[in-house]
């Protein structure tokens, strides 16, 4: 992905200059998202075995990442907001992995 010119050298943890994202970036992201949507539908019709859901999810994650970073401006935001997004992701993963620890091993030793 293109990294527009707005990299700030040193970022304060909580405060940062407000950054205006322009239509160029939005258009670029918009078209990338549309292409990815087409791609994910197209790939779904090809038999790749276990890779099908993996690829579908990878594309979805990529798309979601683009939306978060550019449409939602996290790429240009303070570290606090980046941390907030990361903590949301982390808690979701805690929910998934800790619950799965039960589901994966529930039948161990029982057959």
């Amino acid at each position, binding site marked *: 992905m293109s990294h527009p010119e707005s990299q700030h050298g040193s970022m304060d943890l*909580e405060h940062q200059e407000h950054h205006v994202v322009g239509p160029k970036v939005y258009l670029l992201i918009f078209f990338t998202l549309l292409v990815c949507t087409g791609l994910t539908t197209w790939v779904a019709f090809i038999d790749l075995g276990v890779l099908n859901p993996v690829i579908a999810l990878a594309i979805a994650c990529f798309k979601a990442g683009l939306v978060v970073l550019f449409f939602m401006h996290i790429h240009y935001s303070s570290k*606090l907001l980046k941390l907030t997004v990361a*903590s*949301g992701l982390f*808690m979701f993963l*805690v*929910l998934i992995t*800790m*619950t799965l*620890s*039960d*589901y*994966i*091993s*529930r*039948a*161990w*030793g029982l057959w």
Partner: protein
Amino acid sequence: MSSANTIVQLPDQSTAQLPRKHYLNQELGLKSWLLTGDHKRIAMLYLFSITFFFFIGGAFASLIRLQLLTPGSDLLAPDTYNKVFSMHGIVMIFLFLVPSVPATLGNFLIPIMIGAKDLAFPKINLLSWYLFVAGGLFILAAMILGGVDTGWTFTTPLSTHYLNTHVVTAALGIFIAGFASILTGLNFIVTIHRMRAPGMTWFRLPLFVWGHYAASILMVLGTPVLAITLVLVALERTIGIGVFDPTKGGDPLLFQHLFWFYSHPAVYIMILPGMAVISEVISTFSRKRIFGYTAVAFSSVAIAIFGFFVWEHHMFIMGVSNYSALVFSLLTMLVAVPSAIKIFNWSATLYKGSITFETPMLYAFGFLGLFTIGGLTGVFLGSMGMDVHLTETYFIVAHFHFVMVGGMLMAYLAGMHFWWPKITGRMYPEAISKLAAVVTFIGFIFTFFPQFILGYLGMPRRYASYPPEFQVLNVLSTAGASILAVGYLLPMLYMPWSLKYGKIAGNNPWQATGLEWQITSPPLTENFVETPIVDHEAYDYEWLANQTEHEVKTVG
């Protein structure tokens, strides 16, 4: 009240006056309260509502104890008893314990403690109270229409298929009240991050603020999972989708996972603000900075984070994987570490402190002892082998009442007494309130200690009757509960009395260091005349000694 072993410094009562304008009389009339944006007034609205719900929940508790006075189900029919204990749990947990300290004291004090004029989002704060009331009304409606008898845990498929009571109404009420809690937590986090006064760095924050910050993280991240779970239960009951329904292929254990993903952290939502209060009280009444400030601050955050990794210990006997249970059992032990750090640091604070025994301190001492017992029995229950024997017995009932009532309620009362002079501008009557603290403690021990033994002997919870050999201990418990009731009713009498007849408290009756004690009691609507500039650590009693009362320039 001004004997040698007290720190209370009240102004000369013959000339003392309350400030002419403060948040209580800034505007008058019901409308000015119901549409207020002032965090202090919203705290008062919350105070009235949760007190109301506390006594409703308490009434159900009395019914439970009266029923268990005799082995047979003499007072209530068994299905009525089911409804009574369910409503007791739902009301006490969702309508009292979760909002108790954060929504009242937290709401009132956090902006003042960090030197802000208000919370970041005053309108959302007010909205949170309306949501709380709406949720409370739904639960009251469920109660009046005939009650709900799932227990507060809404266990599926019992709640979705086998009961004809008002599960959906109650679940909706909890859903709405949950959003009140989310909004409170969200408001606190933003406020603590964004609204601190100049110089108020993270490590100058009072530990009260740290505790609430940690609890707010739990509110924001945990509550939505409960919300979606209850939505799925309600959908399963009403339109018959099958996410948890075993007849359609759903897994009831998944409900348990999702439910306890919130409801275990919820325990920390309830206790962390209580611990936050205790830090303030113990420091003030032993005239010392909290020993290991940083450790106590981080232990709050550690409890919040570890709290999300242990929920499965509620499910050891439900058929979860043994291997996974092993992991969760180990992680459960880990939560004991930050809790112990707090207890040890409070004890170390007391060591060689100039301790005085005003009412808040008595409650805080009660907290220390009772919470330690409650916490340690939690470690019993976290170990898988013990848990199989003890879970679903009165042992677990005693355990969580030691933590919630012995811990949280003691802390709540400690906080109410401690900040009462700040909230109202008047002192509560010291002698009778000390009596109330002691009565509460004695009543509590008599009520819940026998339940440990009962549980260990094998008396299961949630039954309307029991074998006659358990009667002696149950009578003891019921007798204790009536003492406990006196302990809770006394403040209901003397607190309102003190509004009119209490001594004028002055700005800082306890000679405490927090910013809230440097402003008028009751505070102005704007809290501070000028934004304070903070140049000292929290609990800096030397700084306080160097300030004479009239030299306090920066904080009005």
